[in-house]
């Protein structure tokens, strides 16, 4: 696994991908920080939580080549022919992408140092939001890996990852639309207004339960809850397992 991790991690810096991703993260986080700084009030937790919105751009860049590139070059055959556990391959690639995210995060550390040097506050709540930020990164990276495993085109992989993350980002909006539509439909077919609304609300709540952005929004205000962390980790495992199964399927298909 370490060999996969090392190879994958170094590959980010042997290609433009790692630099572009860090440059993008630096630009976006810098924009948020300077906006806050110029207003005279810097809340690092708020900045970190705001950075969640850019997973949709950065994660596809990082993960699009993870498996797609190997497939395109034909080097994926190495996974199937060497005595290495496929899950170790998936996890090694996951750790490499995660490590790149940690390097990107140096930008925020610099912002924290600047804030502290300007007599601003870097409190324990900020560390809570940083922790959840990394858990969310783990979740979205695992989604990116899955997207990369289903195709041999980096572009298609990036687009698939983008669509999945943007869908997750819009779950609360989509759920409201779905809930309202179903309520309206039920009302039209004669279900009482309050019953229709109850069903609509249940659907909205059910869909929102799957929204990691809603679950982690309160971290911005210093609310640190373990449940969202468990949610992110467990679903990251699900997506990694799905990636593993896709590779495993190909291994057996090839044999």
């Amino acid at each position, binding site marked *: 696994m370490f060999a996969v991790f090392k190879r994958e991690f170094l590959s980010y810096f042997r290609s433009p991908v790692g*630099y572009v991703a*860090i440059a993008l993260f630096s630009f976006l986080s810098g924009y948020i920080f300077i906006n806050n700084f110029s207003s005279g009030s*810097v809340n690092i937790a708020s900045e970190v939580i705001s950075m969640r919105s850019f997973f949709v751009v950065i994660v596809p860049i990082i993960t699009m080549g993870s498996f797609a590139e190997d497939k395109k070059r034909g080097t994926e055959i190495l996974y199937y022919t060497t005595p290495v556990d496929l899950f170790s391959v998936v996890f090694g690639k996951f750790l490499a992408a995660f490590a790149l995210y940690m390097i990107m995060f140096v930008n925020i550390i610099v912002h924290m140092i600047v804030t502290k040097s*300007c007599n601003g506050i870097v*409190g324990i709540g900020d560390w809570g939001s940083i922790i959840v930020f990394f858990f969310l990164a783990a979740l979205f990276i695992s989604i990116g890996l899955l997207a990369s495993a289903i195709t041999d085109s980096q572009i298609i992989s990036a687009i698939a990852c983008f669509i999945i993350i943007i869908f997750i980002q819009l779950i609360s909006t989509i759920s409201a639309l779905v809930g309202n539509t179903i309520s309206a439909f039920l009302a039209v077919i004669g279900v009482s207004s309050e019953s229709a609304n109850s069903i609509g609300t249940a659907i909205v709540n059910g869909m929102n339960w799957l929204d990691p952005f809603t679950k982690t929004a*309160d971290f911005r*205000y*210093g609310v640190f*809850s373990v449940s969202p962390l468990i949610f992110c980790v467990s679903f990251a495992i699900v997506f990694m397992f799905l990636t593993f199964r896709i590779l495993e399927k190909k291994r057996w298909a090839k044999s």
Partner: protein
Amino acid sequence: MSSNKKSANKSSGDNRQKYLKLYSVGTVLILLVIVFASNILFENILGKHLTFDLSLSNQNSLTKESSDFIASLPADANFRIVGLMDKPTSLNNSPMRYIVPLLDDYASKSNGRISVEYVNPETYPSILRELDPQNIYDLSSDKFAVCYQGRIITVEPYDCFTYDSSYSQQGYMVPTANAVEYTFTNAIANLASGITAKAYFVTGLQTDESVQLKHVLSSLGMEAEDLPVSNGFAIPDDCDLLILNNPQTDIPEPVEIALGEYIDKGGDFIVVLSFYNNVTESYSRLNNVLNKMNLNVDSYVLRENDPHYALDTTGFASLIHSTDGYKEFASTDSFRASYARPVRAYDNPFSYITTEPVMTTSSTATAVIVDPDNGISEFENENTYNVVMYSTYTGMTNPPQCFVFGTSDFTSDSYLSSYGYNDANVQFIRNCIKKVTGLNEYNNVFVYTKPLDDYSIDSAKVTSTNVSVMTVVFMVVIPLALVIVAVIIYNKRKNL
């Protein structure tokens, strides 16, 4: 290989593929079930216990005062806090950011005594009938209804904060403190006590608007209503407390008569006067009423000459001290007062009237008589003056009681919004209200308001130069350098 053997091999391969497919789908489904189940169980069983408030001023969690009070409620108590709205999901830059997480903490720390729910009456109109079958209360969207045993106290999110009145005069409402816990805990305490009381504010005499004081009354479970001055002025029978909050003009005759009758019936009242803006008003009619309580407010302004008491160079803003019987009314015995009028005992000969000083100046204060025409001021002798006095009748059931304040620094909107509900003056006026109304026997919860999280940085360092430098470094230099490295690497490796 015979065709039979080939067919057997193919069949065996198909079965193996089917088995692997089934295995693959099955393991994924089992994992999904485990993940969903474990998340739901964790969230419902441990989620609330493993949620921590890491905010700067514990904005999202109950203080010990509230926690202790909730723990003291009967185990079978069932308070219901209903947000008459959809549960807010986007809290950023909204007052709900302070309310929603804290209400969650009420629910999680109350062991089932308090439930919190959000029901939008526009979607579920029946909630209004369910909460208020007789349509007594003003329940409308975007309010919170705190319900217990058929009684309801409504809370507006806007009222859960104190605001800087100086900014509000310019059209901005700048919140200065978070009173969410203060508001909700007091609402629960008042519902638990089962006591209802009503205060009337005499208006129409250029009195203070009393917005903040009404919030203080609300936190004590008292309803507040305005009572405009008119020719047919009468004090309603349900009046538990009458307040004259800093009238700028004297009361007219109908009010004087009504107040006299109110005292005869054992009514309780608080009179607040000050010298600011109305130096010529002597309040002769109001003093006639106060004389019935053996009190009198003089047309002087108090000037503090002791440098340890004076808060400004003129001595008109100063510290005053509570007397021995009132030390318990606040966490300190020093209070701010400005442009105070002296309150003194009148020479009413009836022995059944008991007056006592409540707050006094230093022994070196002087009473200044201001002549507005030629600006001449005269000074009375240095002495200890009373700024607040209390009076009641002894030897009778349901005696009238009153507090008379010579300064508006305990009740004015400008003072209360500037110093917030934690200020000693506010603590003191709360206890004065509780004393005259008898509420001190029921609601003894005192919850401090919380300062809002302040992430300000040193303003001296927020210069346009610093902002420009940081913009260039964080948004241009670092990203550009990385992009240049990316281009170089791409060019070097594109042919590999």
